[in-house]
Protein backbone atom coordinates (compact mmCIF):
# COMPACT_ATOMS: atom_id res chain seq x y z
CA UNK A 1 0.00 0.00 0.00
CA UNK A 2 2.69 2.41 1.06
CA UNK A 3 4.89 1.27 -1.80
CA UNK A 4 2.25 1.84 -4.48
CA UNK A 5 1.62 5.25 -3.05
CA UNK A 6 5.29 6.15 -3.28
CA UNK A 7 5.51 4.85 -6.82
CA UNK A 8 2.48 6.80 -7.90
CA UNK A 9 3.97 9.91 -6.36
CA UNK A 10 7.02 9.38 -8.54
CA UNK A 11 5.08 10.02 -11.77
CA UNK A 12 4.74 13.65 -12.79
CA UNK A 13 0.92 13.52 -12.83
CA UNK A 14 0.66 12.10 -9.34
CA UNK A 15 2.90 14.86 -8.06
CA UNK A 16 0.41 17.51 -9.15
CA UNK A 17 -1.84 17.34 -6.03
CA UNK A 18 1.25 17.30 -3.83
CA UNK A 19 2.58 20.33 -5.65
CA UNK A 20 -0.80 22.03 -5.36
CA UNK A 21 -0.90 21.41 -1.60
CA UNK A 22 2.56 22.88 -1.28
CA UNK A 23 1.53 25.95 -3.27
CA UNK A 24 -1.72 26.57 -1.39
CA UNK A 25 0.08 25.92 1.89
CA UNK A 26 2.67 28.53 1.02
CA UNK A 27 0.01 31.04 0.03
CA UNK A 28 -2.00 30.44 3.20
CA UNK A 29 1.14 30.98 5.22
CA UNK A 30 1.79 34.14 3.23
CA UNK A 31 -1.73 35.41 3.90
CA UNK A 32 -1.61 34.62 7.61
CA UNK A 33 1.90 35.76 8.37
CA UNK A 34 2.71 38.49 5.86
CA UNK A 35 -0.44 40.06 4.40
CA UNK A 36 -2.42 39.78 7.65
CA UNK A 37 0.01 41.65 9.93
CA UNK A 38 0.67 44.33 7.28
CA UNK A 39 -3.04 44.91 6.82
CA UNK A 40 -3.60 44.91 10.60
CA UNK A 41 -0.94 47.57 10.89
CA UNK A 42 -2.53 49.58 8.07
CA UNK A 43 -5.91 49.22 9.80
CA UNK A 44 -4.50 50.86 12.90
CA UNK A 45 -2.44 53.52 11.17
CA UNK A 46 -5.26 54.54 8.81
CA UNK A 47 -7.95 54.08 11.44
CA UNK A 48 -9.84 51.79 9.07
CA UNK A 49 -10.93 48.72 11.05
CA UNK A 50 -12.17 46.89 7.96
CA UNK A 51 -8.57 46.35 6.87
CA UNK A 52 -8.22 44.12 9.93
CA UNK A 53 -10.97 41.72 8.93
CA UNK A 54 -9.59 38.60 7.25
CA UNK A 55 -12.32 38.55 4.58
CA UNK A 56 -11.56 42.15 3.63
CA UNK A 57 -7.84 41.41 3.60
CA UNK A 58 -8.56 38.64 1.12
CA UNK A 59 -10.78 40.94 -0.92
CA UNK A 60 -8.16 43.69 -1.13
CA UNK A 61 -5.41 41.26 -2.07
CA UNK A 62 -7.64 39.74 -4.75
CA UNK A 63 -8.59 43.19 -6.08
CA UNK A 64 -4.94 44.25 -6.23
CA UNK A 65 -4.04 41.13 -8.22
CA UNK A 66 -6.96 41.57 -10.61
CA UNK A 67 -6.00 45.18 -11.23
CA UNK A 68 -2.51 44.08 -12.29
CA UNK A 69 -3.35 41.22 -14.65
CA UNK A 70 -6.58 42.67 -16.07
CA UNK A 71 -5.09 45.86 -17.56
CA UNK A 72 -1.80 44.06 -18.40
CA UNK A 73 -3.44 41.51 -20.70
CA UNK A 74 -6.21 43.95 -21.62
CA UNK A 75 -3.70 46.40 -23.14
CA UNK A 76 -2.72 43.84 -25.79
CA UNK A 77 -6.31 42.73 -26.28
CA UNK A 78 -7.79 46.21 -26.68
CA UNK A 79 -5.13 47.30 -29.16
CA UNK A 80 -5.72 44.16 -31.20
CA UNK A 81 -9.35 45.36 -31.26
CA UNK A 82 -10.54 42.23 -29.50
CA UNK A 83 -12.04 43.78 -26.35
CA UNK A 84 -15.28 41.84 -26.88
CA UNK A 85 -13.38 38.57 -26.50
CA UNK A 86 -13.01 39.15 -22.77
CA UNK A 87 -16.76 39.53 -22.35
CA UNK A 88 -17.38 36.45 -24.48
CA UNK A 89 -14.96 34.35 -22.46
CA UNK A 90 -16.48 35.58 -19.18
CA UNK A 91 -19.91 34.40 -20.25
CA UNK A 92 -18.61 30.99 -21.35
CA UNK A 93 -16.71 30.78 -18.05
CA UNK A 94 -20.12 31.05 -16.44
CA UNK A 95 -21.05 27.89 -18.32
CA UNK A 96 -17.86 26.40 -16.91
CA UNK A 97 -18.93 27.26 -13.37
CA UNK A 98 -22.32 25.70 -14.07
CA UNK A 99 -20.65 22.56 -15.43
CA UNK A 100 -18.62 22.27 -12.22
CA UNK A 101 -21.63 22.76 -9.96
CA UNK A 102 -23.66 20.36 -12.09
CA UNK A 103 -21.01 17.63 -12.01
CA UNK A 104 -20.62 18.05 -8.25
CA UNK A 105 -24.35 17.70 -7.75
CA UNK A 106 -24.86 14.87 -10.23
CA UNK A 107 -21.80 12.77 -9.41
CA UNK A 108 -21.25 13.83 -5.80
CA UNK A 109 -17.83 15.26 -6.62
CA UNK A 110 -16.08 18.14 -4.93
CA UNK A 111 -14.59 19.92 -7.93
CA UNK A 112 -13.93 23.61 -7.62
CA UNK A 113 -16.26 25.35 -10.10
CA UNK A 114 -13.34 27.66 -10.85
CA UNK A 115 -11.41 24.69 -12.22
CA UNK A 116 -14.13 23.79 -14.71
CA UNK A 117 -14.47 27.49 -15.53
CA UNK A 118 -10.76 27.61 -16.44
CA UNK A 119 -11.10 24.53 -18.64
CA UNK A 120 -14.19 25.79 -20.47
CA UNK A 121 -12.87 29.35 -20.91
CA UNK A 122 -9.47 28.23 -22.24
CA UNK A 123 -11.17 25.74 -24.56
CA UNK A 124 -13.50 28.43 -25.87
CA UNK A 125 -10.63 30.89 -26.29
CA UNK A 126 -8.68 28.44 -28.44
CA UNK A 127 -11.81 27.50 -30.39
CA UNK A 128 -12.55 31.15 -31.17
CA UNK A 129 -8.93 31.70 -32.23
CA UNK A 130 -9.06 28.64 -34.51
CA UNK A 131 -12.28 29.93 -36.07
CA UNK A 132 -10.57 33.26 -36.65
CA UNK A 133 -7.55 31.61 -38.24
CA UNK A 134 -9.98 29.85 -40.55
CA UNK A 135 -12.26 32.79 -41.32
CA UNK A 136 -9.61 35.50 -41.18
CA UNK A 137 -11.35 38.00 -38.92
CA UNK A 138 -13.15 38.46 -35.64
CA UNK A 139 -16.79 39.06 -36.30
CA UNK A 140 -19.33 40.58 -33.95
CA UNK A 141 -21.81 37.93 -34.95
CA UNK A 142 -19.69 34.92 -34.07
CA UNK A 143 -18.60 36.43 -30.74
CA UNK A 144 -22.20 37.28 -29.87
CA UNK A 145 -23.25 33.71 -30.64
CA UNK A 146 -20.49 32.19 -28.51
CA UNK A 147 -21.24 34.64 -25.69
CA UNK A 148 -24.97 33.98 -25.55
CA UNK A 149 -24.44 30.29 -26.28
CA UNK A 150 -22.15 29.96 -23.27
CA UNK A 151 -24.58 31.76 -21.03
CA UNK A 152 -27.47 29.67 -22.35
CA UNK A 153 -25.69 26.40 -21.58
CA UNK A 154 -24.89 27.72 -18.10
CA UNK A 155 -28.50 28.66 -17.38
CA UNK A 156 -29.77 25.27 -18.61
CA UNK A 157 -27.33 23.33 -16.44
CA UNK A 158 -28.28 25.37 -13.39
CA UNK A 159 -32.00 24.93 -13.81
CA UNK A 160 -31.71 21.27 -14.87
CA UNK A 161 -30.83 20.18 -11.34
CA UNK A 162 -33.00 20.33 -8.26
CA UNK A 163 -32.33 23.98 -7.61
CA UNK A 164 -29.80 23.32 -4.90
CA UNK A 165 -26.91 24.55 -7.04
CA UNK A 166 -28.44 27.90 -7.90
CA UNK A 167 -27.23 28.91 -4.47
CA UNK A 168 -24.07 30.88 -5.00
CA UNK A 169 -24.75 31.70 -8.63
CA UNK A 170 -25.39 35.34 -7.76
CA UNK A 171 -21.86 35.52 -6.39
CA UNK A 172 -20.50 34.44 -9.76
CA UNK A 173 -22.80 36.70 -11.77
CA UNK A 174 -22.28 39.91 -9.85
CA UNK A 175 -19.14 39.18 -7.89
CA UNK A 176 -18.81 39.13 -4.16
CA UNK A 177 -16.29 40.08 -1.53
CA UNK A 178 -17.47 37.86 1.28
CA UNK A 179 -17.36 34.57 -0.64
CA UNK A 180 -13.70 34.91 -1.63
CA UNK A 181 -12.02 32.03 0.16
CA UNK A 182 -8.37 31.68 1.06
CA UNK A 183 -8.06 29.01 -1.64
CA UNK A 184 -9.55 31.42 -4.20
CA UNK A 185 -7.09 34.14 -3.29
CA UNK A 186 -4.29 31.61 -3.39
CA UNK A 187 -5.32 30.59 -6.89
CA UNK A 188 -5.54 34.23 -7.93
CA UNK A 189 -2.07 35.05 -6.59
CA UNK A 190 -0.68 32.02 -8.40
CA UNK A 191 -2.47 32.97 -11.65
CA UNK A 192 -1.16 36.51 -11.35
CA UNK A 193 2.39 35.22 -11.07
CA UNK A 194 1.83 32.97 -14.10
CA UNK A 195 0.24 35.74 -16.20
CA UNK A 196 2.79 38.41 -15.29
CA UNK A 197 5.60 35.91 -15.90
CA UNK A 198 4.29 34.88 -19.31
CA UNK A 199 3.68 38.45 -20.47
CA UNK A 200 7.13 39.55 -19.29
CA UNK A 201 8.71 36.66 -21.15
CA UNK A 202 6.76 37.23 -24.38
CA UNK A 203 6.38 41.02 -24.22
CA UNK A 204 8.20 41.67 -27.49
CA UNK A 205 6.45 39.13 -29.72
CA UNK A 206 3.08 40.01 -28.16
CA UNK A 207 3.69 43.68 -28.91
CA UNK A 208 4.82 42.99 -32.49
CA UNK A 209 1.84 40.73 -33.19
CA UNK A 210 -0.58 43.21 -31.62
CA UNK A 211 0.76 46.12 -33.64
CA UNK A 212 1.47 44.53 -37.04
CA UNK A 213 0.73 40.81 -37.30
CA UNK A 214 1.61 40.49 -41.01
CA UNK A 215 5.00 42.12 -40.60
CA UNK A 216 5.60 39.93 -37.55
CA UNK A 217 4.84 36.90 -39.68
CA UNK A 218 7.17 38.10 -42.41
CA UNK A 219 9.85 38.53 -39.73
CA UNK A 220 9.29 34.84 -38.94
CA UNK A 221 7.74 35.24 -35.52
CA UNK A 222 5.37 32.41 -34.62
CA UNK A 223 2.31 34.63 -34.92
CA UNK A 224 -0.18 31.83 -34.46
CA UNK A 225 1.41 30.75 -31.18
CA UNK A 226 1.40 34.27 -29.74
CA UNK A 227 -2.17 34.93 -30.81
CA UNK A 228 -3.23 31.73 -29.09
CA UNK A 229 -1.20 32.65 -26.02
CA UNK A 230 -2.97 36.00 -25.92
CA UNK A 231 -6.46 34.45 -25.87
CA UNK A 232 -5.44 31.84 -23.30
CA UNK A 233 -4.05 34.62 -21.07
CA UNK A 234 -7.36 36.43 -21.47
CA UNK A 235 -9.22 33.31 -20.35
CA UNK A 236 -6.95 32.97 -17.30
CA UNK A 237 -7.47 36.59 -16.30
CA UNK A 238 -11.20 36.57 -16.83
CA UNK A 239 -11.78 33.44 -14.74
CA UNK A 240 -9.38 34.61 -12.02
CA UNK A 241 -11.13 37.96 -11.73
CA UNK A 242 -14.66 36.59 -12.05
CA UNK A 243 -15.08 35.95 -8.30
CA UNK A 244 -14.78 39.59 -7.33
CA UNK A 245 -15.92 41.33 -10.50
CA UNK A 246 -18.72 39.00 -11.51
CA UNK A 247 -19.20 37.38 -14.92
CA UNK A 248 -21.15 40.31 -16.29
CA UNK A 249 -18.67 43.02 -15.34
CA UNK A 250 -15.27 41.32 -15.42
CA UNK A 251 -14.48 42.44 -18.98
CA UNK A 252 -14.45 46.04 -17.77
CA UNK A 253 -11.21 45.43 -15.86
CA UNK A 254 -9.50 44.47 -19.13
CA UNK A 255 -10.94 47.36 -21.10
CA UNK A 256 -11.75 50.51 -19.12
CA UNK A 257 -8.35 51.21 -17.48
CA UNK A 258 -6.70 50.47 -20.84
CA UNK A 259 -8.94 52.92 -22.66
CA UNK A 260 -8.17 55.54 -20.01
CA UNK A 261 -4.41 54.98 -20.27
CA UNK A 262 -4.46 55.08 -24.09
CA UNK A 263 -5.71 58.68 -23.89
CA UNK A 264 -2.69 60.01 -22.08
CA UNK A 265 0.15 57.46 -22.47
CA UNK A 266 3.19 58.51 -24.46
CA UNK A 267 4.40 54.97 -25.20
CA UNK A 268 3.12 51.41 -25.10
CA UNK A 269 5.05 50.54 -21.95
CA UNK A 270 3.78 53.65 -20.26
CA UNK A 271 0.23 52.78 -21.30
CA UNK A 272 0.53 49.40 -19.55
CA UNK A 273 1.82 51.06 -16.36
CA UNK A 274 -0.85 53.74 -16.41
CA UNK A 275 -3.58 51.18 -17.09
CA UNK A 276 -2.44 49.15 -14.08
CA UNK A 277 -2.35 52.32 -11.94
CA UNK A 278 -5.87 53.24 -13.06
CA UNK A 279 -6.97 49.66 -12.41
CA UNK A 280 -5.48 49.65 -8.92
CA UNK A 281 -7.15 52.93 -8.05
CA UNK A 282 -10.50 51.64 -9.28
CA UNK A 283 -10.12 48.28 -7.54
CA UNK A 284 -9.07 49.63 -4.13
CA UNK A 285 -11.58 52.47 -4.18
CA UNK A 286 -14.28 50.10 -5.46
CA UNK A 287 -13.73 47.51 -2.75
CA UNK A 288 -13.71 50.25 -0.10
CA UNK A 289 -16.94 51.77 -1.41
CA UNK A 290 -18.46 48.33 -1.62
CA UNK A 291 -17.71 47.67 2.05
CA UNK A 292 -18.73 51.09 3.32
CA UNK A 293 -22.06 51.26 1.51
CA UNK A 294 -22.85 47.54 1.27
CA UNK A 295 -23.06 47.63 -2.53
CA UNK A 296 -21.71 45.22 -5.17
CA UNK A 297 -17.90 45.22 -5.44
CA UNK A 298 -17.75 44.61 -9.19
CA UNK A 299 -20.13 47.45 -9.93
CA UNK A 300 -18.26 49.84 -7.63
CA UNK A 301 -14.94 48.99 -9.29
CA UNK A 302 -16.33 49.48 -12.80
CA UNK A 303 -18.01 52.78 -11.97
CA UNK A 304 -14.78 54.06 -10.39
CA UNK A 305 -12.81 52.94 -13.45
CA UNK A 306 -15.25 54.69 -15.77
CA UNK A 307 -14.89 57.84 -13.67
CA UNK A 308 -11.12 57.64 -14.17
CA UNK A 309 -11.69 57.22 -17.92
CA UNK A 310 -13.93 60.28 -18.10
CA UNK A 311 -11.38 62.25 -16.09
CA UNK A 312 -8.52 61.33 -18.46
CA UNK A 313 -10.71 62.19 -21.42
CA UNK A 314 -11.38 65.60 -19.90
CA UNK A 315 -7.67 66.14 -19.17
CA UNK A 316 -6.82 65.06 -22.70
CA UNK A 317 -9.20 67.65 -24.12
CA UNK A 318 -8.26 70.31 -21.59
CA UNK A 319 -4.46 70.16 -21.62
CA UNK A 320 -4.03 71.14 -25.29
CA UNK A 321 -6.26 74.15 -24.74
CA UNK A 322 -4.25 75.13 -21.69
CA UNK A 323 -1.06 74.71 -23.69
CA UNK A 324 -2.48 76.98 -26.34
CA UNK A 325 -2.97 79.54 -23.62
CA UNK A 326 0.74 79.28 -22.96
CA UNK A 327 0.50 78.13 -19.37
CA UNK A 328 2.04 74.76 -20.11
CA UNK A 329 4.79 73.96 -22.52
CA UNK A 330 4.86 70.54 -24.22
CA UNK A 331 7.26 68.19 -22.50
CA UNK A 332 6.80 69.70 -19.07
CA UNK A 333 3.82 67.65 -18.05
CA UNK A 334 5.22 64.15 -18.09
CA UNK A 335 5.73 62.84 -14.58
CA UNK A 336 8.50 60.41 -13.68
CA UNK A 337 7.48 57.83 -16.27
CA UNK A 338 9.90 57.41 -19.12
CA UNK A 339 8.20 58.01 -22.41
CA UNK A 340 10.41 56.36 -24.98
CA UNK A 341 9.57 52.87 -23.78
CA UNK A 342 12.93 51.75 -24.91
CA UNK A 343 15.93 51.10 -22.85
CA UNK A 344 14.79 48.86 -20.03
CA UNK A 345 12.43 46.60 -21.91
Amino acid at each position, binding site marked *: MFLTHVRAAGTPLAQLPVLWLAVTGTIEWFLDNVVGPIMDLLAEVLGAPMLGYPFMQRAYLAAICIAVIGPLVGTFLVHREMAMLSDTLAHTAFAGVAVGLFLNSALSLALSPLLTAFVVAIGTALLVELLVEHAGAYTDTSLAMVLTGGFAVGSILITATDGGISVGIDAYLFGSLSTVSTANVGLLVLMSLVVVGLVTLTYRPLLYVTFDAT*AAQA*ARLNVRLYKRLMVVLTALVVVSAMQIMGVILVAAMLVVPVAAA*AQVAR*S*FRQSILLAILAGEFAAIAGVTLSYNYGVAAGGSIVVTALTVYVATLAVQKLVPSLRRLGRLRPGHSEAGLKADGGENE
Partner: protein
Amino acid sequence: MTPAASKADESTGSLISVRNVSFSYGDVPVLDSVSIDVEPGAFLGLVGPNGSGKSTLLDLMLGLRRPDDGTVSLFGEPAAAFDDGERIGYVAQDATEAGRDMPITVREVVRMGRYPKRLVGRFSAEDRRAVEVAMEQVGIADLDTRRVGRLSGGQRQRVFIARALASGADLLALDEPTVGVDAESREEFYGLLEDLNAAGLTVVLIEHDIGVVTTYATEIACLNRQLYFDGDPSEFVETDALAAAYGKDQHVLHHDH
Protein backbone atom coordinates in the same frame (compact mmCIF):
# COMPACT_ATOMS: atom_id res chain seq x y z
CA MET B 1 10.93 21.15 -54.09
CA THR B 2 13.27 18.64 -55.66
CA PRO B 3 16.98 18.97 -54.96
CA ALA B 4 17.57 19.62 -58.65
CA ALA B 5 15.19 22.58 -58.69
CA SER B 6 16.78 23.99 -55.56
CA LYS B 7 20.18 23.78 -57.16
CA ALA B 8 18.90 25.60 -60.24
CA ASP B 9 17.67 28.48 -58.07
CA GLU B 10 21.01 28.82 -56.40
CA SER B 11 22.81 28.79 -59.71
CA THR B 12 20.66 31.66 -61.06
CA GLY B 13 21.49 33.59 -57.88
CA SER B 14 17.95 34.96 -57.59
CA LEU B 15 16.87 36.41 -54.28
CA ILE B 16 13.32 35.30 -54.97
CA SER B 17 12.47 32.64 -57.51
CA VAL B 18 8.84 31.85 -58.31
CA ARG B 19 8.35 28.81 -60.56
CA ASN B 20 5.01 27.91 -62.21
CA VAL B 21 3.06 28.96 -59.15
CA SER B 22 -0.71 28.60 -59.01
CA PHE B 23 -2.90 29.65 -56.11
CA SER B 24 -6.62 29.82 -55.44
CA TYR B 25 -8.86 30.85 -52.56
CA GLY B 26 -11.24 27.91 -52.42
CA ASP B 27 -12.70 27.70 -55.94
CA VAL B 28 -11.52 31.16 -56.97
CA PRO B 29 -8.28 30.98 -58.94
CA VAL B 30 -5.99 33.91 -58.16
CA LEU B 31 -2.69 33.00 -59.78
CA ASP B 32 -2.20 30.72 -62.75
CA SER B 33 1.25 29.32 -63.43
CA VAL B 34 3.25 32.45 -62.63
CA SER B 35 7.05 32.41 -62.90
CA ILE B 36 9.19 35.38 -61.93
CA ASP B 37 12.65 36.02 -60.51
CA VAL B 38 13.83 38.87 -58.34
CA GLU B 39 17.57 39.44 -58.59
CA PRO B 40 19.57 40.86 -55.68
CA GLY B 41 19.56 44.65 -55.90
CA ALA B 42 16.45 44.83 -58.09
CA PHE B 43 13.59 47.30 -57.61
CA LEU B 44 10.60 45.35 -58.81
CA GLY B 45 7.29 47.15 -59.30
CA LEU B 46 4.30 44.83 -59.25
CA VAL B 47 1.25 46.27 -61.02
CA GLY B 48 -2.16 44.98 -62.01
CA PRO B 49 -5.86 45.70 -61.54
CA ASN B 50 -7.65 45.17 -58.20
CA GLY B 51 -7.99 41.50 -57.40
CA SER B 52 -5.26 40.55 -59.87
CA GLY B 53 -3.35 38.56 -57.24
CA LYS B 54 -0.54 41.05 -56.53
CA SER B 55 -0.79 40.83 -52.75
CA THR B 56 -1.15 37.06 -52.92
CA LEU B 57 1.97 36.81 -55.08
CA LEU B 58 3.87 38.97 -52.60
CA ASP B 59 2.68 36.74 -49.72
CA LEU B 60 3.84 33.68 -51.66
CA MET B 61 7.22 35.28 -52.40
CA LEU B 62 7.73 35.92 -48.68
CA GLY B 63 6.57 32.42 -47.72
CA LEU B 64 3.50 33.72 -45.85
CA ARG B 65 1.32 31.43 -47.97
CA ARG B 66 2.05 28.15 -49.68
CA PRO B 67 1.29 27.74 -53.38
CA ASP B 68 -1.22 25.11 -54.53
CA ASP B 69 1.19 24.25 -57.27
CA GLY B 70 4.74 25.24 -58.21
CA THR B 71 7.68 26.31 -56.05
CA VAL B 72 8.91 29.50 -54.43
CA SER B 73 12.42 29.97 -53.15
CA LEU B 74 13.66 32.82 -51.02
CA PHE B 75 17.38 33.45 -50.55
CA GLY B 76 17.92 30.05 -52.20
CA GLU B 77 15.75 28.15 -49.70
CA PRO B 78 12.14 27.00 -49.98
CA ALA B 79 10.25 30.17 -49.00
CA ALA B 80 8.05 28.57 -46.34
CA ALA B 81 11.07 27.01 -44.62
CA PHE B 82 13.17 30.17 -44.70
CA ASP B 83 13.51 31.43 -41.13
CA ASP B 84 15.95 34.34 -41.14
CA GLY B 85 13.25 36.83 -40.23
CA GLU B 86 15.59 39.80 -39.92
CA ARG B 87 16.48 39.64 -43.63
CA ILE B 88 12.90 40.50 -44.62
CA GLY B 89 11.27 43.89 -44.10
CA TYR B 90 7.58 44.18 -44.78
CA VAL B 91 5.35 47.23 -45.00
CA ALA B 92 1.70 46.22 -45.04
CA GLN B 93 -1.09 47.66 -47.14
CA ASP B 94 -2.78 49.30 -44.18
CA ALA B 95 0.46 50.50 -42.61
CA THR B 96 -0.77 54.09 -42.70
CA GLU B 97 -3.71 53.02 -40.53
CA ALA B 98 -1.77 50.74 -38.20
CA GLY B 99 -1.43 52.03 -34.71
CA ARG B 100 -3.53 55.12 -35.19
CA ASP B 101 -5.12 54.64 -31.77
CA MET B 102 -2.40 52.55 -30.21
CA PRO B 103 -0.11 54.41 -27.82
CA ILE B 104 3.22 53.34 -29.29
CA THR B 105 6.27 55.44 -30.02
CA VAL B 106 8.37 55.64 -33.17
CA ARG B 107 11.28 54.11 -31.28
CA GLU B 108 9.15 51.23 -29.99
CA VAL B 109 8.19 50.38 -33.58
CA VAL B 110 11.71 50.66 -34.99
CA ARG B 111 13.01 48.44 -32.18
CA MET B 112 10.73 45.69 -33.49
CA GLY B 113 13.23 45.31 -36.32
CA ARG B 114 15.62 43.76 -33.79
CA TYR B 115 13.03 41.36 -32.34
CA PRO B 116 13.68 38.43 -34.71
CA LYS B 117 17.23 38.34 -33.30
CA ARG B 118 16.36 39.43 -29.80
CA LEU B 119 12.98 38.08 -28.76
CA VAL B 120 14.02 38.11 -25.10
CA GLY B 121 16.93 39.56 -23.20
CA ARG B 122 18.53 42.97 -23.08
CA PHE B 123 19.31 44.90 -26.25
CA SER B 124 23.03 44.89 -26.99
CA ALA B 125 24.98 48.00 -27.93
CA GLU B 126 24.78 46.80 -31.55
CA ASP B 127 20.99 46.47 -31.33
CA ARG B 128 20.65 50.00 -29.98
CA ARG B 129 23.04 51.41 -32.56
CA ALA B 130 21.11 49.73 -35.40
CA VAL B 131 17.90 51.38 -34.16
CA GLU B 132 19.52 54.83 -33.98
CA VAL B 133 21.18 54.50 -37.39
CA ALA B 134 17.96 53.35 -39.03
CA MET B 135 16.03 56.31 -37.64
CA GLU B 136 18.76 58.70 -38.80
CA GLN B 137 18.80 57.11 -42.24
CA VAL B 138 15.15 57.84 -42.97
CA GLY B 139 15.15 61.18 -41.17
CA ILE B 140 12.90 60.43 -38.19
CA ALA B 141 15.47 60.58 -35.38
CA ASP B 142 13.86 63.72 -33.96
CA LEU B 143 10.45 62.00 -33.84
CA ASP B 144 11.64 59.05 -31.73
CA THR B 145 9.40 59.65 -28.70
CA ARG B 146 6.33 60.67 -30.69
CA ARG B 147 3.30 58.41 -30.89
CA VAL B 148 3.17 56.76 -34.31
CA GLY B 149 -0.58 57.36 -34.56
CA ARG B 150 -0.04 61.11 -34.32
CA LEU B 151 2.39 61.35 -37.25
CA SER B 152 1.50 62.24 -40.83
CA GLY B 153 1.04 59.40 -43.31
CA GLY B 154 4.41 60.08 -44.93
CA GLN B 155 6.26 60.14 -41.60
CA ARG B 156 4.58 56.92 -40.55
CA GLN B 157 5.80 55.18 -43.73
CA ARG B 158 9.35 56.14 -42.83
CA VAL B 159 8.92 54.52 -39.44
CA PHE B 160 8.13 51.20 -41.11
CA ILE B 161 11.08 51.55 -43.47
CA ALA B 162 13.30 52.29 -40.46
CA ARG B 163 12.03 49.13 -38.77
CA ALA B 164 13.16 47.10 -41.81
CA LEU B 165 16.53 48.89 -41.89
CA ALA B 166 17.08 48.32 -38.16
CA SER B 167 16.75 44.59 -38.74
CA GLY B 168 19.41 44.75 -41.46
CA ALA B 169 16.94 43.47 -44.06
CA ASP B 170 18.22 42.58 -47.55
CA LEU B 171 14.71 42.54 -48.94
CA LEU B 172 12.03 45.18 -48.49
CA ALA B 173 8.48 44.26 -49.52
CA LEU B 174 5.82 46.97 -49.67
CA ASP B 175 2.14 46.49 -50.43
CA GLU B 176 0.62 49.78 -51.69
CA PRO B 177 2.43 51.71 -48.97
CA THR B 178 1.32 55.21 -49.93
CA VAL B 179 -2.45 54.83 -50.02
CA GLY B 180 -3.75 57.93 -48.25
CA VAL B 181 -0.42 59.77 -48.35
CA ASP B 182 -0.31 63.18 -50.02
CA ALA B 183 1.45 63.60 -53.37
CA GLU B 184 4.47 65.51 -52.09
CA SER B 185 5.19 62.99 -49.31
CA ARG B 186 4.84 60.19 -51.84
CA GLU B 187 7.50 61.71 -54.08
CA GLU B 188 9.85 61.97 -51.09
CA PHE B 189 8.98 58.46 -49.98
CA TYR B 190 9.79 56.97 -53.38
CA GLY B 191 12.94 59.05 -53.55
CA LEU B 192 13.99 57.44 -50.28
CA LEU B 193 13.23 53.97 -51.66
CA GLU B 194 15.29 54.77 -54.74
CA ASP B 195 18.26 55.81 -52.57
CA LEU B 196 18.00 52.68 -50.43
CA ASN B 197 17.79 50.54 -53.56
CA ALA B 198 20.85 52.26 -54.99
CA ALA B 199 22.65 51.36 -51.76
CA GLY B 200 21.92 47.67 -52.37
CA LEU B 201 18.51 46.98 -50.80
CA THR B 202 16.27 44.76 -52.93
CA VAL B 203 12.78 46.24 -53.18
CA VAL B 204 9.51 44.61 -54.21
CA LEU B 205 6.72 47.16 -54.43
CA ILE B 206 3.03 46.76 -55.14
CA GLU B 207 1.69 50.04 -56.43
CA HIS B 208 -1.54 50.99 -58.16
CA ASP B 209 0.01 54.18 -59.50
CA ILE B 210 1.73 53.06 -62.70
CA GLY B 211 3.41 56.43 -63.18
CA VAL B 212 5.30 56.00 -59.92
CA VAL B 213 6.38 52.48 -60.80
CA THR B 214 7.70 53.35 -64.23
CA THR B 215 9.65 56.26 -62.72
CA TYR B 216 11.36 54.47 -59.84
CA ALA B 217 11.38 50.72 -60.47
CA THR B 218 14.14 48.97 -62.41
CA GLU B 219 11.86 46.10 -63.33
CA ILE B 220 8.11 45.85 -63.83
CA ALA B 221 5.82 42.86 -63.56
CA CYS B 222 2.25 43.26 -64.76
CA LEU B 223 -0.13 40.73 -63.32
CA ASN B 224 -3.71 39.66 -63.71
CA ARG B 225 -3.89 36.01 -62.63
CA GLN B 226 -1.17 35.44 -65.21
CA LEU B 227 1.98 37.39 -65.80
CA TYR B 228 1.42 39.79 -68.72
CA PHE B 229 4.78 41.48 -68.63
CA ASP B 230 8.07 41.15 -66.80
CA GLY B 231 10.93 43.39 -67.79
CA ASP B 232 12.25 46.90 -68.25
CA PRO B 233 9.96 49.88 -67.44
CA SER B 234 10.80 51.63 -70.72
CA GLU B 235 9.71 48.57 -72.67
CA PHE B 236 6.59 48.20 -70.53
CA VAL B 237 5.10 51.52 -71.60
CA GLU B 238 5.53 50.57 -75.25
CA THR B 239 3.84 47.18 -75.08
CA ASP B 240 0.11 46.56 -74.85
CA ALA B 241 0.60 44.39 -71.75
CA LEU B 242 -1.14 46.95 -69.58
CA ALA B 243 -4.21 47.11 -71.80
CA ALA B 244 -4.28 43.32 -71.97
CA ALA B 245 -3.99 42.91 -68.20
CA TYR B 246 -6.50 45.62 -67.34
CA GLY B 247 -8.97 44.74 -70.09
CA LYS B 248 -9.51 46.13 -73.55
CA ASP B 249 -11.10 49.46 -72.58
CA GLN B 250 -8.12 50.55 -70.55
CA HIS B 251 -5.73 52.91 -72.25
CA VAL B 252 -2.13 53.28 -71.34
CA LEU B 253 -1.40 55.78 -68.64
CA HIS B 254 -1.74 59.47 -68.87
CA HIS B 255 -0.06 60.54 -65.75
CA ASP B 256 0.79 63.85 -64.25
CA HIS B 257 1.77 63.67 -60.64
